[in-house]
């Protein structure tokens, strides 16, 4: 092997370490006693099963991260579903039915992704409060739909644009209406696009916590990012073994999720997604 090639491979390994080591470190800390973290530098790799069980049961059950995760799945799942149901027809209309101002309208929708969170969080909170939905799933789902909707529409416009117009036209010549064409002919073609849009819409709201901070007071209804935020805030000193365990518990669902997302990530990102 040429020396240049060797250096390139060393660089590749270094990159892998830079990317993965912080997570591994977090995982190791999550197996330790509080004092061990301070006393063992660097941390040793002799794991005690009892301590691991203790940390994780503390975080998952006593601190409630397991129910926070379930809350997140419900809130993010439902809001993504609603965003998809509302957003897909809109994206199709933007792609196919060009009318005066449709391009401007589409870019206005994209620009909503650029809003500073606090600009909408306070009014959304006051609105949710006024209709009496604080401390409920609905109080989070309603705002979250509006967060993932611009993303969903934007990603799907790209996918609809790739389907040749002739396909719609053929269906319509055969007597289908626009809506029948969309439902029966085009939707099956853009299914990967809908998966991409759903995944990125979900990710966007999965990590959200400002609106949740306002809307949810009850511990029982906290989402995973809100739960993590309240458990590990930089405001106060923390138990590092518990903080690390909280970290691992939030990383694991995303890790599983990322295995599914691999195929779609380039499409999603280039359409202006993530966070």
């Amino acid at each position, binding site marked *: 092997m040429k020396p240049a090639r060797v250096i390139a491979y060393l660089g590749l390994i270094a990159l892998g370490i830079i990317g993965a080591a912080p997570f591994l470190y977090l995982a190791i800390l999550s197996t330790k006693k509080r004092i061990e973290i301070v006393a063992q530098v660097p941390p040793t790799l002799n794991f005690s099963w009892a301590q691991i069980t203790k940390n994780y049961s503390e975080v998952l059950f006593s601190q409630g991260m397991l129910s926070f995760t379930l809350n997140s799945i419900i809130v993010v799942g439902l809001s993504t579903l609603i965003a998809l149901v509302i957003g897909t027809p809109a994206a199709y209309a933007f792609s196919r039915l060009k009318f005066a101002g449709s391009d401007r309208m589409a870019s206005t929708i994209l620009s909503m992704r650029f809003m500073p969170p606090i600009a909408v969080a*306070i009014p959304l909170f006051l609105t949710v409060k006024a209709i009496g939905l604080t401390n409920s799933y609905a109080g989070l789902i309603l705002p979250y739909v509006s967060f993932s909707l611009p993303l969903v529409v934007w990603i799907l416009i790209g996918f609809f644009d790739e389907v040749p117009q002739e396909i719609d036209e053929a269906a319509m010549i055969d007597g289908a209406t626009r809506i029948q064409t969309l439902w029966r002919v085009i939707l099956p073609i853009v299914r990967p696009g809908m998966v991409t849009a759903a995944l990125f819409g979900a990710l966007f709201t999965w990590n959200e916590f400002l609106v949740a901070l306002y809307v949810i007071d009850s511990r029982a209804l906290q989402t995973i990012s809100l739960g993590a935020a309240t458990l590990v805030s930089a405001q106060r000193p923390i138990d590092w073994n518990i903080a690390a365990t909280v970290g691992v518990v939030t*990383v694991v669902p995303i890790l599983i999720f990322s295995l599914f997302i691999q195929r779609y990530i380039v499409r999603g990102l280039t359409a202006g997604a993530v966070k």
Partner: protein
Amino acid sequence: MSAVSAARQPVAVIEGRDRPALTAWLLLGPCVLYLVAFSIYPLFYSLRLSFTDLTAATGTGNFVGLANYYTLLTDPLFWNAAMNSAIMVTAAVALQVVLGVALALFFDLDLKGAWIVRGILLLPMLITPIVVGVMWRALLNPDWGMVDWTISAIGLTPPDWLGSVGMAMVTLILVDTWQWTPFVFIIVFARLQGLPREIFEAAEVDGAGPIVKFRRVVLPMLMPAIVFAAVFRAVDAFRSFDLIYGLSYGGPARGTTTLAFFSFQNGFQFQNYGYAAAVAYSMLIIIAVGTTILLRYVQLRPGQAR
């Protein structure tokens, strides 16, 4: 061409029967109404709030006109935050663009097993930013963190990462770079992979060395993707506060309090809704002006960066 227009003819007739305006509104209506109710209305609500002195404690705000904006412009904390935002966004985006392009070129070498490392590099940007902040707080802990231990082990003195005002900003920029360089990389890499290779070969045949080839041929063709990634990164770095929430909580001595974090503190910690809305609106104006100027030079279309 004529075949296409011939095919379009009958559709226009069908559309006429189908009442396209009605169809358009059926398709668009729910989405537009939803966004008006939950995005545009809140935005106007926020504007109205920024003219009041509403706090969580008072409950009802009085109209105070431009007083919040006046306070803002004379508030040294606001200018401190604006300065921090400017430094953070500029440095982080510049660093991430340079590293992201370098990574794209590196992965273009097509090394064996590179896909594994690429998969690892995707992970940081998917993780909840607060957790990223906390994770790095552990790594950089002066007493037992692994980074400090490693630096000491090779005989150097680790910097006071999060303890001093200037260094905390550097640390924030570095952590943001760790998390988001892959975003720039993925977008630039996708563009690079899609470019026709013959052009590079032609440049080599014409005697261009690697540096000239990169500057004159590769870089200009990557530019749309680079600008696209940079715009998104700049806006997100400007408006996000959650990494700071986990990493430094704006400190020490407000050294990492950016405008986004400042607005969060006023709006949530101090429950000063009117003032927070004014800060948020000033950010909105900065984003609007910034992106309008940028978009004069580039157009963002779906799939354009590919």
